[in-house]
């Protein structure tokens, strides 16, 4: 039963939200120790929220579009009173005094947050291995990573602990784990979903988005969380797009660009999946053209200067003064240093160092300044492409889920696993990953659909075509 069906049945009074919450808790208990998906399970809160939904149904009130649907939250989203760590020692034990806008919207829609999921520390990573609380295992093959940074949220859905989850995508952190876990993940247009209450990694790139087992559920969840928020200055002013209503639009008459750079270096099986997706889309009435966007090759370099630069500033506030960890020392400066040195893991330190360097006097123009110009070129290149085609098609990742430790000793090798997803974040546009085909070890492969800003309805309709073909 998918989330859409669950909510319909709860609203009709056919199943109780509390029963769904209990079932979700059972599923979590069954595998959480093995997979390390949830860092915190809010059992009491979930049951209380579910009971409120059931009460509303009993009173004949509309409990909302996600009535009674259990959902997992990446542990960089603030929920009032619930421990929020970003998988970092530096925030261990912190309970935010406020909730993220997306969490408020979920609760308004009757969804039932079950707890907080594991991630790479401060969302910096592609495998959930940088979490201070141990890695998450891929439910499809526990010897492999679930991807990252939203590995816990992807795994929660893939392990059927919750039908839905929220993640955040700064350079691919939703799409990549979605692909590695065989589920749907959407990186919405920058500004479509409020970032208020999302603990920042790189502010100009971060975007919250949905994980779901199917395209319809992803569309429903995105519709619930999207839309203008006055608490986020970068929130788009237009009303949220209608997505669910367009799921059946198909691709007839659409022009789709198959991007060579989004296949370069990918496993053969993945390239095969993408090419097969192209023929499915053509069969459904689309015109697929092969094209090249050479600028995409520069994405990785620009991203690994821009994101760390913003992060170095966003993470300065973890200084031991107001919340979280403090390691005392003789004066404030020494206390700051001792706290940050003990509280941050190696990958976070590496990126803070890189970002601080890129912004520092004498290097700004060569690194950060140049990266911002490359970003302009990236955005312009996409815009040029979208003058000719309605959407782009490529691989989500170069490989299927990899084994633990295979990339941890070489930061650059890890960074390369986001090479296909990063350009969309730099351009601030929309993209999604939909499971399509199988690769090495019979693991799922993901196909990526990319579109201009606010093209989510179009991308989801195309993803639905692929999903339908795959499911027969």
């Amino acid at each position, binding site marked *: 039963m998918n989330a859409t069906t669950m909510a319909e049945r709860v609203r009709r009074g056919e199943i109780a939200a509390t029963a769904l919450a209990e079932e979700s808790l059972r599923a979590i208990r069954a595998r959480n120790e093995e997979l390390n998906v949830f860092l915190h399970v809010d059992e009491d809160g979930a049951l209380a929220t579910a009971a409120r939904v059931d009460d509303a149904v009993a009173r004949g009130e509309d409990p909302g579009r996600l009535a009674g649907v259990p959902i997992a939250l990446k542990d960089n989203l603030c929920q009032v009173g619930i421990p929020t760590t970003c998988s970092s020692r530096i925030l261990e034990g912190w309970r935010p005094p406020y909730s993220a806008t997306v969490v408020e919207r979920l609760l308004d829609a009757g969804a039932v947050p079950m707890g907080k999921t594991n991630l790479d520390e401060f969302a910096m990573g592609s495998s959930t291995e940088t979490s201070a609380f141990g890695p998450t295992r891929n439910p499809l093959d526990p010897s492999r990573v679930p991807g990252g940074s939203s590995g816990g949220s992807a795994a929660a859905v893939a392990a059927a602990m919750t039908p839905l989850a929220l993640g955040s995508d700064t350079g691919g952190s939703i799409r990549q784990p979605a692909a590695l876990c065989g589920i749907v993940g959407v990186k919405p247009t920058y500004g479509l979903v409020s970032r208020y209450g999302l603990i920042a990694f790189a502010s100009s790139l971060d975007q919250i988005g949905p994980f779901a087992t199917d395209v319809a559920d992803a569309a429903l969840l995105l519709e619930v969380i999207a839309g203008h928020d*006055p608490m986020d200055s970068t929130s788009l002013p237009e009303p949220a797009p209608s997505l669910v209503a367009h799921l059946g639009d198909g691709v007839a008459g659409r022009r789709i660009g198959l991007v060579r750079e989004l296949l370069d270096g990918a496993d053969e099986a993945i390239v095969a999946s993408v090419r097969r997706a192209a023929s499915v889309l053509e069969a459904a009435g689309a015109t697929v053209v092969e094209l090249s966007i050479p600028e995409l090759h520069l994405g990785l370099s620009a991203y690994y200067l821009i994101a760390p630069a913003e992060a170095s500033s966003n993470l300065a506030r973890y200084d031991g003064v107001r919340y979280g960890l403090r390691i005392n020392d003789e004066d404030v400066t020494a206390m700051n240093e001792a706290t940050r040195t003990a509280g941050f893991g190696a990958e976070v330190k590496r990126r803070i160092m890189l970002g601080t360097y890129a912004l520092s006097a004498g290097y700004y123009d060569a690194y950060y300044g140049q*990266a911002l110009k490359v970003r302009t070129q990236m955005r312009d290149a996409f815009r040029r492409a979208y003058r000719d085609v309605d959407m782009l098609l490529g691989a989500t990742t170069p490989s299927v889920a990899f084994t633990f430790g295979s990339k941890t000793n070489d930061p650059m090798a890890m960074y390369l696993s986001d090479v296909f997803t990063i350009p969309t974040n730099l351009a601030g546009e929309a993209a999604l990953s939909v499971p399509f085909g199988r690769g090495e070890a019979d693991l799922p492969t993901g196909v990526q659909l990319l579109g201009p800003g606010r093209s989510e309805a179009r991308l989801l309709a195309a993803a639905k075509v692929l999903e339908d073909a795959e499911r027969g």
Partner: protein
Amino acid sequence: MSGLTRAEVAHVAKLARLRLSDEELDLFTVQLARILDHAADMQSLDLTGVVATAHPYDLINVVREDVVRPSLDRDAVLAAAPDAEDGCFAVPRIMGEES
């Protein structure tokens, strides 16, 4: 090669309020240099005249009305503090300038 030196890495660590052991300093110098070398593809581009993009979208004048909203409860705020005294956040002595 970026020519990143160990001294530069040490300086950056100081700016970022991080303490690095000698081994970490060596390791970071090598790792950061590799990342910066990868960025060399970008540095060699002639991008004179290209405008920098700091924001994906060109929104302007996003403002809010000057209307008071409730603040947080002080006890709740200070409960999260590693050290508090007298309704304030307490810190060890501050060396350096007064703000």
